[in-house]
């Protein structure tokens, strides 16, 4: 099924269907990370739960002279499955369910804004109905999945993340393009809810499930938060940084635009908007793109992206070296590449 996570581990890849094509660098680090965890289609996932159980028992043999210990340490099978607990794997799937649910619910159309050019109203209504039900179905499965983790603190944490995401999207759709400018700090606050909270809190929860202390949980949270914010910035900046790409359209809420608005001030921004709008108040995005590139909005975005990448790396330093840690660090590095 589409919603099944392609991989599950401490850091995560955002499955954003609205994102621009990822840079090849990003794709590479993600694919490397996937190898550490294992595809669901590999036989390992079929056996992973059982293997993890075995692995946990084998751990008790450490310090003894039983030959099984040798076999285990030489075998990829048991070694790998020692790294990730089944509950953590389940958590990763649950996180993906929630993420998909919010994507689905985000696509619901306001029928009042329906125009003839959108096609028959009945189709929009039916589409809405399906979107509501599918999203609800995914959320319901996430809830029952959470319950099965048998850890009420984790349930609370992830439920709060669901609330954050919904709040975040709600306010995202409320702010209009011509409202007062956002500061960098408020952009971060506003972006954290819809784009960062889920990853940050599920990283924290993954630590909790393995009974790591609060310090480890906090570092995991920080990594998740900064990786997510960095990824959003990277995603928004693609259009403005990649050479030869002139956009057909872009969101006026994307980071470079928001920073640009703050730099030029509300009056000049309004003036610029008028410049690029035609009689029917339709925006010529290519013109606007050009105007934005001339100011410092883009470079400010790049600086912020580096900042978050570094913060994510900082968080990872607190974990002992391992393949997984390197994979996560590579993902953080990849944020600054375009």
């Amino acid at each position, binding site marked *: 099924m589409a919603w099944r996570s392609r991989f599950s581990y401490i850091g995560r890849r955002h499955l954003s269907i609205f994102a621009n094509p990822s840079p090849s660098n990003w794709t590479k680090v993600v694919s490397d990370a996937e190898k550490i965890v294992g595809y669901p289609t590999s036989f390992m996932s079929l056996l992973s739960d059982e293997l993890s159980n075995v692995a946990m028992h084998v751990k008790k043999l450490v310090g003894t002279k039983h030959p099984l210990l040798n076999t285990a340490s030489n075998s990829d099978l048991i070694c790998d499955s020692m790294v990730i607990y089944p509950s953590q794997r389940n958590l990763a799937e649950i996180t993906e369910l929630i993420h998909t649910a919010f994507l689905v619910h985000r696509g619901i159309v306001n*029928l009042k804004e329906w125009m003839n050019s959108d096609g028959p109203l009945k189709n929009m209504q039916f589409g809405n109905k399906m979107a509501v039900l599918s999203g609800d179905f995914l959320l319901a499965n996430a809830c029952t999945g959470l319950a099965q983790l048998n850890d009420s603190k984790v349930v609370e944490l992830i439920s709060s993340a669901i609330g954050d995401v919904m709040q975040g999207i*709600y306010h995202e759709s409320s702010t209009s393009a011509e409202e007062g400018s956002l500061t960098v700090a408020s952009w971060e606050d506003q972006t954290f809810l819809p784009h960062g909270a889920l990853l940050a809190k599920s990283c924290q929860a993954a630590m909790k499930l393995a009974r790591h202390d609060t310090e480890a949980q906090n570092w995991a949270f920080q990594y998740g938060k900064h990786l997510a914010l960095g990824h959003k910035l990277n995603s928004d900046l693609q259009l403005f940084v990649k050479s030869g790409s002139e956009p057909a359209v872009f969101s006026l809420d994307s980071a470079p635009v928001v920073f640009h608005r703050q730099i030029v001030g509300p009056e000049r921004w309004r003036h610029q908007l008028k410049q690029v709008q035609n009689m029917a108040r339709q925006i010529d995005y290519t013109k606007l793109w050009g105007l934005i590139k001339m100011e410092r909005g883009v470079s400010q975005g790049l600086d912020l992206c580096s900042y978050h990448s570094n913060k994510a790396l900082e968080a990872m330093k607190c974990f002992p070296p391992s393949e997984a840690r390197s994979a996560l660090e590579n993902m953080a590095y990849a944020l600054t590449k375009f």
Partner: protein
Amino acid sequence: MAVPWSRCWRSGAGAAVLLDWCCGFSRRAFTHAASAGRRTDSSAAATQVLFRQGPVYNFNRPTTITRRRNRCLYTTPPVCCSICSDAKLKDPFSLAQKDLQNLYEEIKKLLVSKAELKVLCDYYFDGKGKAFRPMIVILMARACNVHSNKEGVLLPAQRSIAMISEMIHTASLVHDDVIDDSDTRRGKNTINKVWGERKAILAGDFILSAASMALARIGNNTVVSVLSQVIEDLVRGEFMQLGSKENENERFKHYLEKTFKKTASLIANSCKAVSILVNSDPEVHEIAYQYGRNVGIAFQLVDDILDFTSCANLLGKPSAADLKLGLATGPVLFACQQFPELHAMIMRRFSSDGDVDRAWQYVLKSDGVEQTNYLAQHYCQEAIRQISRLRPSTERDALIQLTELVLRRDK
């Protein structure tokens, strides 16, 4: 003489059989009979009910019925009778009043958000709802507490459950209104009409997440599982509503299952949850669950009746709403027995011109409403039978009286 299947259950013993079938008890009766290698009269009658054969069942002959069914469904248990006629019996609403008083205010405190989202979330927690679910939960909690040799005072966790059940209910209402494209609810415009579909869905999700957080904070994994099941049932019930069944008998079973998932599951599992919090005996959990389940189904059946019989302004939402949505509820399914013309209309979900009006006429001409009412009564009787197994208390008696209120409500 051949009696149409829909009528055979109206006699005492027949009612027992149908009710068992409806309540799923017959499954146990069947397996019991099957394992004993004999076909009891009751299982034969149930088969006839399901397959619409003429009855072989002799209503006058004493039957080999299980001990369970001996606890009369159709003769009023003496305990219930005396209590129902007791003038001093407290009205369930007033009994739960104190605990319900600040419920909505406390729910609003759980919905931590700002600006417009806060307005949407608080929209239906204005105290104008019936607070039916929290009331049942609170009374059940106290009845279980008394039964468990603790005082009839509400535990904070049980109070949370009452709030959580109302929040889950409201969240599902908000989503249902978008799915059904409804204009009004509880006498005011729906959230989707005022703020749009998108914001309505997000607000519903937010309320659900707040309920989920409150649930987790109780700190009891079993309770979390029990109530998470509700959320899944609600969605599945909604999906079930999208489909329709060809076969008439399947249709009714489908309708009852959908009714359970959409309405009764929440009440049943909330009741079960509060019993788990105070008592470890699975029998007590089962009593609480079965009471909630039966009352829940009865509640929905009455709701479906009111859709035909009530005026729009009394309900706070428009009537014949179910027909207009293409849904065939109890009264229609029963009416279909007398007016086979309804068959085709049900299959096409009343989509042709004039279908809704014609179907309504058929229903009002038939005894569909009456039959649904009888069915609701029997569910209530089962609920009473279950709850009577708890130790006596004012709360238990209030729960018994509550079934009466369910049947008598006009909105």
